[in-house]
């Protein structure tokens, strides 16, 4: 069947699955709540505990999970195509370690600046992510016209190692509890508490999504090699730039919102490819939608498994993702 004919079906099924997950997830949690009470307008907001649990504790969290999951899965798809490497993740190119360094510095120095209701740690981590993106981009673009994917990859991996060293350096001299808090940040956390952080990340994510929306055809051709893509009329340099910058923006915004939640950017795209094939016109939208559903489900496990104690969501995704990654590695080898 042609891609264009399958697209509506794929979109319909993945949208439905994601929507169902997002609607269902806020109804479950560590505390039993009554939905009748949640939506009862007769009960005063300030005394409606059920409504507050639903609207303050769970809904922003579920939506944060959906945004972060969607962004990381989409960034994974784009980077795997750009680097022609099935094992590439949103964190391969240094964005997440830049974000982690920002978060570590904000934690260690107790920064208290807020901007539009967004606190210092997400602000600093987004700044770090964009700094890392700028460095990697600058290095890869300086080689020749356009981006060298080899330099991109090497610069990204090296920057990861370098930033990790800086993180360890700051951590080593930081207060014990601050160091612990920074480590906790690395495990991912979606309990955002209010909608403000979502509102901050949303415009950035929409911008990234808009840029990615024009990419699928070019990504299909890029996976066959730059020359093939160029011969088929793709502006290779423009496509590479757009791919790298949109994936980095999505990753940076997602990580600043929920921390560097691992493995989503690799599990989801590969699972989706197993189901719908390799065409990016299907893989990209389906991964974006199912990435949202996947992280929301993992977070449901995270907040209910040992409640009232929370299991960091990054541990859940890693426990599922680690074995999956190895299976993938063996299968490709």
């Amino acid at each position: 069947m042609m891609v264009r004919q399958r697209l509506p079906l794929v979109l319909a099924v993945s949208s439905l699955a994601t929507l169902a997950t997002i609607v269902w997830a806020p109804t479950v949690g560590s505390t039993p709540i009554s939905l009748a009470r949640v939506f009862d307008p007769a009960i005063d907001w300030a005394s409606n505990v059920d409504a507050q649990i639903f609207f303050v504790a769970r809904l922003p969290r579920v939506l944060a999970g959906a945004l972060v999951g969607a962004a990381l899965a989409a960034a994974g798809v784009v980077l795997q195509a750009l680097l022609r490497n099935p094992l590439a993740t949103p964190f391969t190119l240094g964005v997440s370690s830049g974000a982690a360094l920002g978060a570590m510095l904000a934690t260690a120095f107790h920064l208290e600046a807020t901007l539009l209701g967004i606190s210092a740690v997400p602000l600093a981590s987004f700044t770090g992510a964009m700094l890392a993106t700028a460095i990697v981009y600058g290095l890869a673009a300086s080689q020749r016209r356009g981006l060298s994917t080899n330099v991109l990859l090497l610069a990204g991996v090296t920057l990861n190692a370098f930033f990790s060293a800086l993180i360890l350096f700051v951590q080593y001299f930081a207060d014990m509890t601050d160091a612990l808090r920074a480590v906790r940040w690395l495990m991912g956390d979606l309990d955002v508490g209010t909608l403000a952080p979502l509102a901050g990340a949303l415009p950035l994510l929409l911008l990234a999504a808009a840029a990615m929306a024009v990419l699928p055809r070019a990504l299909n051709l890029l996976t066959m090699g730059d020359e093939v893509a160029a011969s088929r009329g793709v502006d290779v340099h423009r496509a590479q730039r757009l791919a790298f910058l949109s994936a980095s923006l999505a990753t940076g915004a997602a990580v600043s919102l929920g921390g560097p939640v691992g493995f989503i950017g690799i599990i989801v795209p590969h699972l989706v490819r197993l189901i719908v094939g390799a065409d990016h016109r299907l893989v990209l939208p389906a991964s974006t939608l199912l990435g949202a559903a996947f992280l929301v489900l993992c977070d449901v496990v995270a907040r209910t498994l040992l409640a009232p104690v929370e299991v960091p969501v990054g541990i859940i995704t890693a426990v599922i993702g680690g074995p999956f990654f190895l299976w993938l590695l063996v299968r490709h080898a």
Partner: protein
Amino acid sequence: MTMATTRRRTQGLALMLAVLLSATSLVAQAPQRIISLVPNLTESLFSMGAGPQVVAVSSFDREPEAVRTLPRVGALLDPDVERILSLRPDLVITYGSQVELKAQLARTGIAAFDYRHGGLTDALTTLRALGVRTGHAREAEALARRLEQQIAATRARVAGRPRPRTLLVFGREPGSLRNIYAVGGTGFLHDMLEAAGGRNVLADVTQESVQVTTETILARAPEVILEIRGGTDPSRADARPDTSPWQALASVPAVKQGRLVVLSGSWLTVPGPRVGDAIARFSTALHP
């Protein structure tokens, strides 16, 4: 003078002699070059008069003032063994998890006083044991007694009053409701809260610290939220933190009734010689 009284007198003399001898032998054995890697015990050492025997401290030690000029020999995770050995200590105060350091000390024949955080009674037991070990048994006993009396006085003050259900928060990302860390149902902070006349809403969680979600806070509905602030930097401890993010949890009684209390100072979370003051501070916050 009867035989009996003579015997009694000789016995008394012998006993006195024995006490004197053991005391001098204790003093002779008392370590003169102590290295403390546990900040709350450093503070205790100084308050029982063992300060002059301390030759080095951990990199996290800030209290009392006198430690600021002492050499630093690393801390919990990174003790500088070479530096420790080069200072020729005769007693090193270690934390329970410093297994490798303790093995190295044992190999070189240096005595260690091993410590782990526990409950409030453990803190007092440790204080006494530390006094005996360093030749300051009497001062330590007096200190422990004073703390016990102080705690008992606080308990007596709040006895019979309704004990507010309290969430004791010791960490939160500034300007948000993220990364909230609160005191669970074990450990000295939990004991301190209960002694101060509060009821810990997380008493059933058998951990010292809990990363608590907004859902749990809404469900547990604390009547008081006691937030302790202050890292190691004393200049920051006085900065008035923003409690406005809590307003998002409008149904929580503590928010509704405005019982959000912020206490500043890292000394409030240290199981050392100021633990009695800290409990009193908690209790005035809970029972104004």
